[in-house]
């Protein structure tokens, strides 16, 4: 099992420890997860699938809770709609 995996966040490569969630990749990428209804930047809050603040598009599927998804090599994460 490789120790690191690489995903892209809005096209930029992010390298994380194997077993990391996408929410962690977002923090390491220095990117907020979503823009709120009024355009504020938001990131993970509860990290346990309750608050939906960490929702991102993963491999083209929008509104995925990034704290509940493990990073996989080649995964494409987008926050820009």
């Amino acid at each position, binding site marked *: 099992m490789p120790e690191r995996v690489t995903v892209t966040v809005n096209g930029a490569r992010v390298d994380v420890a194997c077993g990391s969630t996408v929410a962690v990749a977002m923090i390491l990428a220095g990117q907020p997860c979503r823009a709120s*209804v009024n355009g504020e930047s938001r990131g993970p809050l509860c990290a346990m699938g309750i608050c939906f603040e960490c929702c991102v598009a993963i491999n083209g*599927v*929008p*509104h995925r809770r990034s704290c509940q998804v493990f990073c996989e090599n080649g995964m494409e994460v987008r926050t820009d*709609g």
Partner: protein
Amino acid sequence: MSDDGYEVAIVGAGIVGAACADEFARRGLRVILIDREAVGSGATAAGMGHIVVMDDSDAQFALTHYSQRLWQSLRPELPEDVEYDQCGTIWVAADEEEMAEVRRKADYYSERNLVTDVLDEAQLKTLEPNLRPALAGGLLVPDDGVLYPPCAARVLAERAQQHGAKLQLGCAVERMEQGCVQMSDGHEIRAEFLVNAAGAVAPALTPGLEVKKRKGHLVITDRYPKFLRHQLVELGYLKNAHAVTADSVAFNVQPRRTGQILIGSSRQYGAEDKEVDHDILSRMLQRSQEYMPALGSMSAMRTWTGFRAATPDKLPLIGPWPGDKSLFLATGHEGLGITTSLGTARILVDQITGAQPEIPIEPYLPSRNAKEQVHA
């Protein structure tokens, strides 16, 4: 104890009651608007909120068309949270039989000065690319729109208050008759005219009223901006909605200003409980996926139910209740209460103030259904 000095007491602060309160107040009458809960929290909150012209009958067309024009003139005064969006309706035709209905409908509307656009398969695809392929076409009605009903009801109630109307919320009504509204906390409100605008609950206050509950389910998705542009209704809706006895579902989706998609619709008689009925819900969603396959992977955030106030002839009851000179009705709007609230308010107040209504009111008079009671 009693509160006096009102000319009109309206029971039910849904969109119909709120619209009536606004109309009465602006014509100078002293009004009180009463509801057991909050403004617009019953069927108003549960409905889809379309401002749509329908032609099940000439009378239905007249009232919906009249009301739609009233909404359009009110529109500049509506605040942002009412989310009025003139997105237009497309009646979707699945096959040639339904295309024949499209053409009939187009002719009917144009004879009555309502602009429509007949769409062929390719034009439909261009306007709504997420519909499944191989549909026959459709009819675009560009003047139709959608809004967010609870805020619309609130705005109407606020306008009424600005013209002196009083709002009494959070207390149920036990009885309303002979110029007196009896509240469940024991106090009475007297008024020269009483208006029963209690929607599907109206018969509990006015026994003998032929209004039945017709249950509906709705689902709202997360935000998917630009996925859908118009309100879409399957023309099979006519076949389904006309079935008065059996439970039915039909494809009906709306784009909300928020980017969310509201998915309907279902109709059930004899279902009195508010619970979500999973069988009918899943049939309704299955139907929506048949027309728009991509809806399947979307995130559904909430489901809910509501009760339409249905009359036997599918026309609302607007006018005096035979047998009680003080009592007027404004109920029985079935699935069109949001649209027809403004027209209802106008012709009801016209009747009470003796003004000349702008459309013929006879088809909506309660006496059409209640003749038996009068002679009983």
